[in-house]
Each structure stands twice: as C-alpha cells, then as structure tokens.
C-alpha cells in the first residue's frame, strides 16, 4: 500500500486533533492543575483550605477568594507597585521582583505568601525553613492582633524592608517599623530535621526505613533525589502533615 503526502498530512492532523478531542470528551485532557488547595482533614481547622498547598501559580486574586483576604491587603503586604494588576499577580512573580533578596538569603516568594495567609487566618502552618515576610506584611499581621508572642517574635525577626512605600491599607493601624533581619547567613538544614529541602535520600541516610516512608506516604517512594515536599505536593497532600509524621518516625528511630 502506497501513501501520498496529502493523505499522510490528513492522518497526522486527524490523529492529533482527533486524539485531543476524544480525550477532552472523556475528561482526560488536562493542561493545568486546578487552583484549589487541599483542605485540612483533622483538627480545629478541618474543612479549611490548607495554606501549605498554595502553589506558585496561584494569583493573588485566587488567594483572596479562597481565603477571604482583601486583595488590597495582599497587594500592600507584598509591596506590589500601583500599576500591577494584583488580582492576576502570581506568587512566583515575587521571586522575580525581589530577586535581589534571594541573593541576600532573605527570599520573598511563595513560602512568604503561605506564611502570611496562615498567620492572617490563624491556620496551622509548619515553618520548615527560614521564611521572610515584607515589613508591610508584618505590620498587617500585627495589626490583626491575633498573633501569639512566639509568632510576633518570629515575624519580627524575619521582616524584610522592601524599601518601598509602606502605606497600610485603610483599616489597618500602623505598627512600629519592624527591624531588618540581622546578618544574612545561608540556611543549612540540620541533619535529622525534615524541612522543605529534605530529599528521600536524606530520610534514608538518617536511618528511616523505606517501608516506613512508604507507609506514611501511602504509596511507593520516588527516586532518592526527589524533594519530599515536591512529592507530597504532587500527591495532593499537605506537606505539613507528612512532615510531622516523618519527623515523628525519625525521632522514634533515633531513640
């Protein structure tokens, strides 16, 4: 059987677009992850969205709706310029506009948004790394009046002056200027402490059996170089819960 170019071209188009149409009809064709974080399953916050599952692709508008935080608070907290559409501004863009801070070791990024949302809403959040907040964000949080003494100490110690106008939005009282972080030292995770930078290889090296890890994950362990946090997120589970369970298993193994 001989095939001419016209027929080959038609077959190529039919297979590609027919395949896409068919898988779309079967609800299999997905080009993005739904921007809805997982919810807490247990504890006082059960049923609430978990800020730990906020992704870099979430826009401030998404977060405002999901967590019921006024959009202008988010824009002010993270020092967005007036000409930026805050509703469409994605968390990952913070790392672009504050790239110099990353080099200085005081990165403002998606983790900062997670922490801000958690503290603003009073939701549980495991701080697994040094997370910095812009000074306006700290002011807004302190003005809420709901932070514990420990939390106030943390945000004060991790406040970063953006060098921008720090006008708080209407309804937020001005707090005293937060101090700059002290010397910017590179964060080195402590051995045996599960953090966002911990890989499965680290867990194994610290003496945790693969069976125990898989039992906690509820499935097979990926490649040893994979970050635990990335893998847990890809499973649609909150990292904070997995971290707690893994840390407990590590502590038990160390005894």
């Amino acid at each position, binding site marked *: 059987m001989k095939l001419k170019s016209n027929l080959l071209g038609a077959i190529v188009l039919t297979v590609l677009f027919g395949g896409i149409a068919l898988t779309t009809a079967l609800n299999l*064709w997905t080009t993005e992850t739904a921007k809805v974080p997982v919810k807490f399953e247990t504890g006082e916050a059960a049923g609430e969205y978990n800020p730990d599952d906020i992704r870099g692709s979430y826009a401030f508008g998404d977060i405002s709706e999901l967590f019921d935080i006024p959009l202008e608070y988010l824009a002010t907290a993270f020092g967005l310029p007036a000409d930026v559409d805050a509703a469409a501004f994605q968390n990952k863009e913070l790392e672009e506009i504050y790239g110099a801070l990353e080099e200085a070791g005081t990165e403002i990024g998606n983790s900062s948004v997670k922490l801000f949302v958690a503290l603003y809403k009073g939701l549980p959040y495991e701080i697994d790394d040094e997370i910095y907040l812009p000074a306006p964000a700290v002011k807004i949080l302190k003005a809420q009046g709901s932070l514990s003494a420990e939390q106030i100490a943390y945000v004060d110690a991790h406040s970063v002056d953006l060098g921008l106008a720090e006008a708080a939005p209407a309804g937020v009282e001005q707090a005293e200027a937060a101090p700059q972080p002290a010397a910017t030292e590179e964060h080195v995770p402590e051995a045996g402490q599960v953090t966002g930078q911990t890989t499965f290889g680290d867990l194994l090296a610290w003496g945790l059996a693969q069976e125990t890890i898989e039992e906690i994950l509820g499935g097979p362990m990926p490649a040893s170089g994979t970050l635990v946090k990335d893998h847990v997120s890809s499973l649609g589970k909150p990292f904070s819960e997995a971290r707690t369970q893994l840390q407990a298993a590590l502590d038990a193994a160390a005894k």
Partner: protein
Amino acid sequence: MKAKKHNKIWLRPAIQLFFFALIALIAINHTLAEEGGGIAFLSSASLHALCPFGGVVTIYQYATTGTFVQKIHESSFILMILGFILAVLFGPVFCGWVCPLGTVQEWTSKLGKKLFKRRFNRFVPRKVDAVLRYLRYGVLAWVLYMTAVTGRLIFADVDPYFALFNFWSSEVAVAGLVVLGVTLVGSLFVERPWCKYTCPYGAVLGVTNLFRVFKIRRNEPTCIACDKCSNRCPMNIPVSQQLVVRDHQCISCLECTSEAICPVPATVDFVTGGK
C-alpha cells in the same frame, strides 16, 4: 522509464506553518492569561503541557509513584501516546511535519542554502557526523536519569523549543537561549542540527524507523541512480544506496519520494511491506 519534472510537496510546509503559528499563539496567550487577559477561544496552556516529550520524561515517575513531574500534566502524556501511534505507523512524522523547532531550523536553513549553495549541509566531516548522530541518545539518557533522580523538569533549562516560544518570559533560563541561538546559527550551515545531533525526543521516535509500518522504499529496477533523493534528504541519509530506509534519523518528510524530488515515477515511495 520516462523521467518527470520534480514536484514539491505543498502540504508539509503548510502543516508546519500551521503548528508553528498555533504554538506561538498559545504561548503568547499563556503570557496574556497570566496577566489577566488573553484570547478566550484559544488555549492558554503552558508549553510544558503541550510537549509530548514531557510525557516521556515523566514515565518513570508515573510508573513508580503514579504522579507527574512538576509542570507536566495529562495532556503531555496524551500527546506522547499520539506521537507514538503516529511513529509506529509512519516513523518520526512528528519531527518532519509538526515540531515547530524543526520548522524554524528549516526556515533558517533556506538562508544557509542561498549563502553556501552546494556546500550547505556538508560542512561536518562524514566521520565526525557519523559519531555525533548518536549524541542525542546520550542526551536522552541524561535527561531521563536526571528527571528520575530529581523529580524536576531538568531539560526545560536547556530546551531550545521552550526558549523559542518563551524568550520574552523570565521563565527561560539563559542556557536555553544560548542553545536556541547555537541551533539557529548552526542551521545556516547544517540542516536541522538540533534534530540530528541533540534532540532527545527525536532519539526516541527515531527508533521506530526500525519497525514502522509505512517506510521509504526504493525500487531498484527503475532507479536511474541520479542521487537526487540522497542529496535532497535533510538528514543526509543515502537513500539511493538503500532499498528500504531504516535509518534512525529519517523524519518521514517524503522529500526523497517520487512524489517530490525523485524524477522517476513509482521509484521511491512511502509504502507498507518491503524487507
């Protein structure tokens, strides 16, 4: 056998232009959508979601954990399967008819042909070229290994396809832009240099040339040994010296066939059967 005037296959460049424009528009729409705008009836998917090679690099993680590598979605997996179906039937037809990076290299090469005439596509010494042709399998092995170990889309940082349609975005790594630049400059001297020497997806699809259902077959009794098929082949395959083309580099462009450059009817065809 009466020789015919050679024809040009018009549909392939038309389809190539279509896919180039489609991917370019979707990439632009993706940027607009991230800024709160965009064209409603056009997809705003990320390039990662529309790249079949994304499906290939996530196979290991999907098989072992049931999850996709970051930034890869179901669509990449589906495109990978569709690409494999086409390749088993027709060889790497995705490379020759669809891939926008291949298309851009062909466009750039048109300038190279005008500049260097007959020297074009003959700059690389044959022995060196023969060895370099297998480099893309090394690239493939490196990409698969690194992606499996890290669970991250390692290749995106050096991917010229991603750089081509995202050069305005901060998501593109400098290395990706450099590789794209080298590829385009290289296309002035060599046809499809990225495809020949480096493309890991081409390496995967190229294997199907060994067993594809439809294959390029030369009818020796009617062949006049003019070598036009070999000279026209963008991948420098010596078609005139083979009865059936099983070269792992063939991209099923059909430029060597009697429908295009071969002057003798029914002498080089894309057919089933043939040993």
